[in-house]
């Protein structure tokens, strides 16, 4: 089904290993060159700011002073900012909190979503349609911020990590994508497993899930990025500053320009640049996402496309 989506459909290798169909016009050299330049510029627009952030976070106080602020060309790499940030204190705690919320939340979301998607993927089953409609309907109305807030408060979830997980645990769109893939599992496999005496949990675990590995990887990434990037729920449900996750601390340190507690001395003695600290916090927030997403990237298309067709 997805063979046509590899981006190479119908392209025949031509001369000199070029992948251009034989009937297509040869592009001019200037055309190719200008296209290349534009592409490089577009990529630079994305990568250059990140480069500056990373380089500045690795720069010493002197380099930053000489550059008059942000550093573009690295000179003398130092990890002082990271040592200070990760040597205990507010940012270390926030990083651990974010990691825990992300891991626990993603596991919870995936378990519930996969079970729900499988439960709704067998179209002959009882109540399958009403339950599906019950789920789809939530895509059309949002209850609104205020009543949601009141419900979370009424359940006593404020100032608890559960408030960072439960209200945003499910994404109906993700469940639909999973369900679409589960439905494309060959029914013969499921039937034969059933005849061999497998129950639904075993079929899901040993047949359907291994066959849907790619889409499960994509959805896991989506959920994980959601938890890792979230700051709004924490900003309204968490009042204890000791419990804030990394994004909220980054908001305070960088956007609101507050000084990190416990690091004031190092900054005042000129040992540490506040700018390097800010940039290092940004890099901490960036690292997991930048490392994970390329591994899953080749599967994005399948997940997104199924969603677009079914959604």
């Amino acid at each position, binding site marked *: 089904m997805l063979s046509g989506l590899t981006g190479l459909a119908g*392209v025949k290798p031509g001369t000199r290993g070029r992948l251009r169909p034989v009937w297509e016009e040869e592009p001019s050299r200037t055309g190719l060159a200008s296209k290349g330049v534009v592409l490089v510029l577009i*990529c630079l627009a*994305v990568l250059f700011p990140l480069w500056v952030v990373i380089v500045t976070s690795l720069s010493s106080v002197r380099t930053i002073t000489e550059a008059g602020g942000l550093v573009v060309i690295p000179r003398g790499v130092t990890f002082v900012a990271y040592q200070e940030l990760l040597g205990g204190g507010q940012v270390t705690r926030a990083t651990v909190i974010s990691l825990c919320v992300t891991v626990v939340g993603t596991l919870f979301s995936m378990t519930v979503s996969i079970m729900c998607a499988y439960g709704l993927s067998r179209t002959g089953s009882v109540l399958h349609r009403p339950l599906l409609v019950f789920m789809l309907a939530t895509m059309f109305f949002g209850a*609104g911020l205020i009543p949601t807030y009141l419900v979370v408060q*009424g359940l006593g979830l404020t100032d608890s990590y559960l408030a960072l997980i439960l209200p945003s645990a499910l994404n109906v769109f993700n469940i639909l994508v999973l369900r679409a893939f589960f439905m494309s599992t060959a029914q013969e496999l499921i039937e034969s497993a059933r005849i061999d005496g497998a129950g639904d*949990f075993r079929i899901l675990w040993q047949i359907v899930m291994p066959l849907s590995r790619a889409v499960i990887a994509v959805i896991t990434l989506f959920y994980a990025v959601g938890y890792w990037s979230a700051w709004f729920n924490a900003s309204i449900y968490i009042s204890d500053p000791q419990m804030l996750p990394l994004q909220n601390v980054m908001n305070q340190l960088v956007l609101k320009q507050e000084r990190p507690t416990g690091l004031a001395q190092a900054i005042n003695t000129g040992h540490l640049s506040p700018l390097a600290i800010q940039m290092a916090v940004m890099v901490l927030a960036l690292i997991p996402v930048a490392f994970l997403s390329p591994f899953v990237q080749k599967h994005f298309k399948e997940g997104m496309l199924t969603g677009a067709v079914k959604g």
Partner: protein
Amino acid sequence: MSLSTEDRRAREPRTPPVETRAAGGAPVATKVPLRHRLRRDRTLLLMTLPAMLLLLVFAYVPLAGNVVAFQDYDPYIADNAFQAIAQSPWVGFEWFQQMVNDRLFWSALRNTLAIFLLQLTLFFPVPILLALFINSFVRPRVRAVAQAVLYLPHFFSWVLVVTVFQQMFGGAGLIAQTLREHGHEGFDLMTDPGLFKFLITFEMIWKDAGWGVIVFLAALAAVSPDLYEASAMDGANRWRRMWHITLPALRPVVALLLVLQVGNALTVGFEQILLQRTAVGPGASEVLDTYVWNVGITNGGFSYAAAVGIVKGVFGLLLVLGANKVAHLMGEQGVYKK
């Protein structure tokens, strides 16, 4: 709702229906009693239970919680929000009347629509153009690298994106810094109320335009190369092929995304704006979502904020349905089928 054809025909009955012979001799399937089907599918039902409970608690119960918009909700009347709702006095449509006379509400609505229009004109076409551009490269390596780079910002949090912009375009940012070094005046894009809407749109483009490319690239890859070959044989040059084959192939996807975009017209950049509103002041940056947040969460005007939220929700739903209707009239499928 979009229920695919696969859903419509129940293709795999789990146990074969009981067959009986009717008078004519043709097999008639009698329905398995509900009791038996519930027993038969109990594992499947059990599996959906946690998700349904979550949806019930965090989507349907809050929906009922909207009643506070018709009350004078007082959070201090009881220990618990639920009890407070039960004990708060009813005021009818008072909050809605107040909203009509509220200058700040109309200002928030104006800002919301202005940002939506900018999004529609400046943001929306970018992924399409980017997809056509990337699609014009034939080397798989080039395409893969370009996609990897372009997808990346989608996974950054808004805090990170706003911070990156501040470091580039803010008063102490790289551009101001470079300008000052060369004897020019520095500038600060982040605190300019007049440019705020463009800043917001620019940030959206940087973060999500690359991600939007995926859907269009997939649509382009699904076009049969035979069409291109045949038209090339007929003498169509590359521009005519783009006009007559590529662009029509994108039409359904464009229509679908346009409908979704219009449906979200009243929901523009909530988190993003919340992070930046203090820098430019609410006059330029307040949109409906941030207004609800400001009135309700920060100032405790829960009832009034809920009323604004309801109005926004109702008009949002009407927008989706209306846009979808237009898509149908144009002969496109839209979000759900007719």
